[in-house]
């Protein structure tokens, strides 16, 4: 069965871009998107995704606050997908400490993205790895 993924980002464009990358992997299925942390909490209850791809900088409720609450209500795995949280940055460490399964960078250079490079993308490989463990 495909791994269910929820994409949380305040930018519609980013949501679509990430959705496209994730859906290029036949083992993964994007079951929904959310515009902010609060929205995400509701969607998680409703959709019960296996993995949540979570942005950090968002209005209404940011990624860190969301992460804290997500861990209280669900067993879903959370992957932080953000350009703020480069590996080793304070935000990344905080996110890890709060239970994020991994922290990876947002996609870049969409213009050159062909299907092959999408499949081998860090995002898809991370989701598969996280969902297994």
């Amino acid at each position, binding site marked *: 069965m495909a791994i269910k993924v929820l994409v949380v980002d*305040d*930018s*519609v*464009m*980013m949501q*679509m*871009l990430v959705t*496209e990358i994730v859906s290029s992997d036949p083992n993964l299925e994007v079951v929904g998107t959310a515009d902010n942390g*609060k929205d995400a*909490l509701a969607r998680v209850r409703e959709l019960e995704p296996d993995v949540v791809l979570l942005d950090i*900088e*968002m*209005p209404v409720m940011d990624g860190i606050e969301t992460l804290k*609450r997500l861990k*209280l*209500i669900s067993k879903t795995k959370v992957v932080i997908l953000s*350009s*703020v949280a480069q590996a080793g940055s304070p935000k990344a460490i905080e996110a890890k400490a709060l239970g994020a399964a991994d922290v990876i960078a*947002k*996609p*870049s*250079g*969409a*213009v*050159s993205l062909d299907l092959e490079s999408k499949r081998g993308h860090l995002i898809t490989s991370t989701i598969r790895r996280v969902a297994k463990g």
Partner: protein
Amino acid sequence: MSMDFFWEQFGVECAEHLQQIERLLTQALEGPVGNDGISQLFRSMHSIKGLSKAMGLTGMESVAHRCEDILGLVRDKGVPLVTDMVQLLQRANDMLSSLHEQVTAARSDSPADNALLLSLDNAYQRFSRDGGAAPAAAAPAAPEPVAEAVEEEPDPLDVLMRALDDFGPDVARMVERIAAYCLDAAPAALNRSTAKEARSLAIRCGDAGLSALTDVLEALADEVARKIPATDDERIAKLARIGQELRQVEAAFGVDLGGSALSLRPPAHGEAMAQAIAAPLSALDLNVSLVDLSEDQLADVIADLWDGLRVIDRLLVFADDRNAQTALCDRLSVAAAASDVGIALADLLVDLDGVRDRLYDRLVSLDDSGDAFDLRTELAPPPAAEPDPSIVVAPSFDVAQFLKDHGLHDEFALCISHEYYDQLEAVRDGTLNAVLITIDLNYDAASAKQFLGWVRSKALSSISRSVISGDETLFEFLVFTSENPGELVRELEAVVGPSIVVESRAVTRLDETAQVVEARPDAPPVETSGAITPTPALTQLRVSAAALDGFMSQVGCLVSVRSRLSVMLQDDNLGRLLDSVADVGRRLGAKGMREEVALLEEVRNVLQDNRSRLQGIQGEFSRHLSLLQETALDLRVLPLSNLFARLPRIVRDLGALQGKDVRFVMTGGETVVDKSIIEALVDPLIHIVRNAVDHGLETPADRIAAGKSAQAMLTLAAVQQGGEAKLSVIDDGRGINVQRVGQKAVERGLTTAEKLAAMSNEQIIQFIFEPGFSTAAAVTETSGRGVGMDIVRTAVVSIGGKVLVSSEPGKGTTFDITLPISAAIQNTLVVRIGDHQIGIPSRYVDEVQQVDRSEIRDLHDQKVHLLRGHVLPLHHLNSILMGGESKTDERVMFVVVSAGERRIGLIVDAVVRREEMFLTKPHPLVRRSPYLFSATVSGDGKLILIVDVDGLMGRMAHAEM
């Protein structure tokens, strides 16, 4: 998904962020934007960076990245958002906007200007070095160790862990000691100074950054100080709560602080908690529809919500940390202090949503872990005798009024939580003193430290807020004290020296005669009433346009119902019936039919009673409907200030570019118009204003040569006149050269020399609105953009407005834009044709004329009338709409309508009245006629068709060709 989608989405989202940044930066130049503003700025810049990166646009990314870094300093490191930083960010934002334009058009990367990137890099270095610390003048004189410590930036977590190592054991001992005293049935002897020791430990913890422990210790000290029996239920619950807080800290840092000693209660099952919580939660689940409620009902709802909140607030102690709780209370107080009931309610609902989510989340987790508490004690109402100041919300105190009465900045409302209400009340009643101190804490670190120490020693408590004054960040301290304020102020200067004290005064009630502010004469002026009011509690609710239109249309229907009702009551059939009943009664009485007379009398009474009640109800209905109508209009309208915000910068930048000194004054920003109108007005207004600076205003040298002041004056004035808003852009520049406009008009074939000779100057000037018309000798940066005055007129006309220009050579030019406030409710001229009533939107109507039949001539099968020397084509409105000829009287009445440059006369039978009409969306059947715009029901219940003048003019034009 195609790449097109991403490019389009990128364009749209970036444009939104760029606009948001532009707005906030402009605001920042006028006054502080607050933490929310700064967060928004940061987030928007961050989004642009992320979006650009995703699209592989390194040019935009490089600019946005650097701006984000600088804004990061402001948001996270407390570096003030000073003027030159804002200006630099504005330049960067302009660069981003133009890059954005380029890349979305070319769909490929475009490099950023290296010079700008370099300035951004330099600025980042400079701001991160200087930080929020001492100004340049003071820095070399006193190389404080404090400053070095800031530069090193040790890992904050390390600092905390070290502090915990230092204080942890002390805290644990103190907690256990107090627990033993408070919870033991046979209390251990307690040293009298325990409370004092706990407080001093609390302060030391606070200084070391362990504010969570400060709160815990303070609360424990309070508990010790209260002389109540050890078995008191409330105390036990409270200590359990403190213990819970403490255990959170213990869990977070893996240390033992004695938290377990505070809890005696066996944890109850999570289900009990869920049940206890259910009631207030369901009360919050109201789907409040604002329009259904009267003002009184609204107030009741709010009161109910407050009650529910108090319970929730108590629950929150379990559910979340103390900071969140305090923050919530603060926001609620602000909401309550907001004068507008609707705003307060909207705000409450938003807050409640958050609270409910938090509670829910917390409940789930508690339920899972089984680690819950008995809430029944918590849900009991608080004891009246000694309410716990940390839980009980006191919405009754009007903070805003207090601040106003005492000459304090209303931004204080944001920092005043309910914990201060008692003190504020005492100050108001004169039983406590307060001093307001404005101080420059950045001047030098030693004085600042001295000052803070002094405040702590003298004050019962204090509230502070930051004030941006020029490039400096000052602090205002509102200090509550029992000491004499006058002596305190003198002592302050003796202790910390006058150099850092900008202003200090006793806080007293302002009255009309006495001005209490004693500013030091040499001190820099302090902005105490910022031009930008902070946006505390004004939460915007998003409503779909369709829902709003539906609502408006329902209101419109009600307006029709009211009109029919009042017409019915005016007709007063009942009154006539009553008269005849009385008449019949008299006649029957004359015949001695007593029983029948009594019966009739009763009927009459009942009818009379019903009639007057009906009239009463109609009056009431009418009043409420008027209010509802106003509210309905308010829902769609926005103040013009939204539109004005971006203009000052345009004027300043353009003026600077062209070496013109311009004083730009805007008035009437509070005038409101329909949202869609504001949106459509942005470009025309910018164009007119740019045009005024570019072509209208002269350089200082030219102005002096012309005998005018060197500084040019540009005014943007808005006023509301009835159902219309009038916007005027007035400059005192060189004016429009009428002769050249006339020449050009002839050259372009817009008119002939003969016709021109007959025209007034005012008529000639209007040619500037013709397509492709431009008199500019040179194509300047601003006028070369391809948007001419014709576009301005088209845009204004499309939203139902008119634009006129008037000018006096050498004195200046004025553009007047007249706009309907609402697109939905329009002033309409009702005319009659046969039995039909037809509405013509008043904004198209120039005048109504009545002439003799003999004055109407036939010209190529077209009826015309020579109106003041101009040929006016006439049409029978009847034949246009219904295909029949009107009856022809000796006198012919026609309505002169104009749309764009065309004018025609519409022959009608009579003019009935003017009426404010709510124009609903037309019925599909009506819409099929090219001449009809809409239909509405008038006061007497008749259908009135509204003419589509634009459509009609278009058809007439075709027919003529």
